[in-house]
């Protein structure tokens, strides 16, 4: 049993979880922004969107560690949890882009 490999894998799992928790928050905050806009509370919607962006940036920052590791020749262990992190990150980004437009739509609908 190679403990160094195990430690590495465990570190990479933690990295995956940190990504998931941050982009997960980003996604939830984006949805909360949308719900706020639905109620006509556009100021709150903007606040939630800003908060969401912070979490998303942090998730991306952590994710780039993995990209750097791979680029420098260090092995990145493929795992389902890492795939999940990637998926959550990209869908959070997609949702965020759509929600921004939907908030504009609510502004028009609520008039």
């Amino acid at each position, binding site marked *: 049993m190679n403990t160094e490999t195990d430690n590495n894998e465990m570190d990479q799992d933690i990295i995956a*979880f940190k990504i*998931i*928790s941050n982009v997960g928050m980003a996604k939830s905050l984006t949805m909360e922004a949308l719900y706020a806009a639905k109620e006509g509370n556009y100021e709150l919607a903007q606040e939630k969107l800003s908060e969401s962006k912070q979490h998303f940036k942090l998730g991306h920052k952590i994710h780039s560690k993995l990209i750097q590791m791979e680029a420098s020749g260090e092995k990145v262990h493929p795992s389902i949890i890492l795939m*999940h992190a990637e998926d*959550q990150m990209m869908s959070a980004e997609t949702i965020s882009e759509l929600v921004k437009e939907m908030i504009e739509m609510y502004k028009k609908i609520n008039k």
Partner: protein
Amino acid sequence: MKTIMLVCAAGMSTSLLVTKMKKAAEGKGVDADIFAIPASEMSSVLENKNVDAVLLGPQVMYMKKQLEAELSIKNIPIEAINVQDYGMMNGEKVLEQAFSLIK
């Protein structure tokens, strides 16, 4: 024995947390049934199981209001998992959070 249900997007990220929480519960000599499910399965699970507390992963935290409506009828407390504890997969802290909800 207390039953704690964790809800997340696919039930994936919460499963490691469940393992850690079970370990923490063992360490404290506490008897608890802890499991994780995807949000889509919540209603059907609640039909068949008595749950004492529901904890939400960050990705589904925004669903709290809708889920609260369903859960308040059964008097089941629900809260978003503390984001720092979740990111660090801190089983002990999340277990504490769950038990603080069960009063």
